[in-house]
C-alpha cells in the first residue's frame, strides 16, 4: 500500500509533461482576455471560477463579439459537459468519500488529470486512497493554470505565434490515448469520435465536443452488444 502523499505525488508528476501545453495555453488565455479589452480581474476570475481552458477563451470571444450572456453561458456548459463523463468514470473510486470531500475533489476534475488518473487507477486497482492521485494531478494543474493565466494577463502573449504551440494540445491528448491503440474496439471508437468531430465541427455552441463522444459511446455500446 502506498501512502497518501506518495499517491498524491504520483498524480503531481504525471501532470508535468502536460505542462508543455497547459502553460502556453494559460498564457494565451490570459493575454487574449486583455486583448479583447476586458478588465484584468474579470479575465483572471474566469480561470478561478470557470477553470476550463478552451471554454474560457470561447466565453470571452463570444462576449467580446457581442453575444448575449445566455449564449456564452450555454456554450461553456456544452463544452464542459464532457466532465460528466469523467465524473461517471471516477465516481467508482470516489464513492466512499464524504459528501464534502466529493464536492471539493469535483472542482479539480480536469481533462489531463482525468486522463492520467484513469490510467493510474486502472493499473493500481488494489490501492486505497486512489482519490489522492486525482487530487495531486488536479491541484498541480490548477496551480500552473492560475500562474500561467496571470502571466498572460500581465505580460501579454510573449510566446511567438510562429512556434504554433496550439499544436501541443492535440499532442497531449494523443499521448494519453496511444496506449489504447492496441485494442481494436477502442481504435474503432476513437476513429468514430475523431471523424464525427470533423463533420460536426461547425455545429452550434461547439457541441461537437460532446456529440462526438456520445456517438462514439453509442458505437461502444453496439460493439459490446454485438460481442455477446
Amino acid at each position, binding site marked *: 500500500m502506498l501512502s497518501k502523499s506518495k499517491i498524491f505525488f504520483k498524480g503531481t508528476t504525471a501532470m508535468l509533461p502536460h505542462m508543455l501545453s497547459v502553460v502556453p495555453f494559460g498564457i494565451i488565455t490570459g493575454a487574449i482576455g486583455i486583448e479583447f479589452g476586458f478588465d484584468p480581474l*474579470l479575465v483572471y476570475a474566469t480561470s478561478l471560477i470557470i477553470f476550463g481552458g478552451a471554454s474560457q477563451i470561447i466565453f470571452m470571444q463570444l462576449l*467580446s463579439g457581442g453575444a448575449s450572456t445566455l449564449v456564452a453561458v450555454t456554450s461553456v456548459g456544452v463544452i464542459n459537459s464532457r466532465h460528466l463523463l469523467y465524473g461517471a468514470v471516477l465516481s467508482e473510486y470516489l464513492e466512499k468519500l464524504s459528501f464534502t470531500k466529493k464536492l471539493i475533489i469535483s472542482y479539480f476534475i480536469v481533462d489531463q488529470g482525468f*486522463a492520467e488518473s484513469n490510467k493510474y487507477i486502472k493499473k493500481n486497482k488494489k490501492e486505497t486512497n486512489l482519490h489522492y492521485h486525482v487530487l495531486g494531478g488536479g491541484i498541480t494543474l490548477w496551480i500552473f493554470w492560475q500562474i500561467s493565466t496571470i502571466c498572460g494577463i500581465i505580460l501579454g502573449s510573449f510566446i511567438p505565434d*510562429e512556434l504554433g504551440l496550439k499544436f501541443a494540445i492535440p499532442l497531449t491528448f494523443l499521448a494519453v490515448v496511444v496506449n489504447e*491503440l492496441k485494442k481494436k474496439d477502442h481504435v474503432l471508437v476513437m476513429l468514430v469520435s475523431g471523424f464525427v468531430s470533423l463533420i460536426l465541427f461547425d455545429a452550434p455552441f461547439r457541441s461537437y465536443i460532446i456529440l462526438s463522444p456520445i456517438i*462514439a459511446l453509442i458505437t461502444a455500446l453496439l460493439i459490446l452488444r454485438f460481442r455477446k
Partner: protein
Amino acid sequence: MTWLSIVMSGFVTYLARMTMVALINRKLLGNRIKEVLNYVPAAVFPAIIFPGVFLNDFGSLVEITDPKIYAAGLALVVGFYSRSVIATIVSGLLSYWFIIFFLLR
C-alpha cells in the same frame, strides 16, 4: 463580460464536474453503462485531437501536406512504442518545428 456571466458559467461547469461524483448513486448505473464507461477516454479525446490536427484556424480541412499531420503521425508511433507521455509530446513538437523551420524554408 460581467461577474454574473462568469459565475453562471462557473456554476454550470462545476455542476458538470460534480453531478456524477456527488449526486448520482452508482447503483443507478446499469452494468452495461459501467462497461461502456471504459471507453470514455477513447470517445472523448479524439474529438479534441482530430480538429487540432486536421482543421486549420478557420475550421476547414488542412491539405494532405500539412506538417501537423506528419508530426502527429510520428508522435503516435513514438507514443505507441515508448508508452511515454513526454516522449509523445516532445517528438511531436520537435518534428513539427523541424518541418516548419527547416524543411519548409
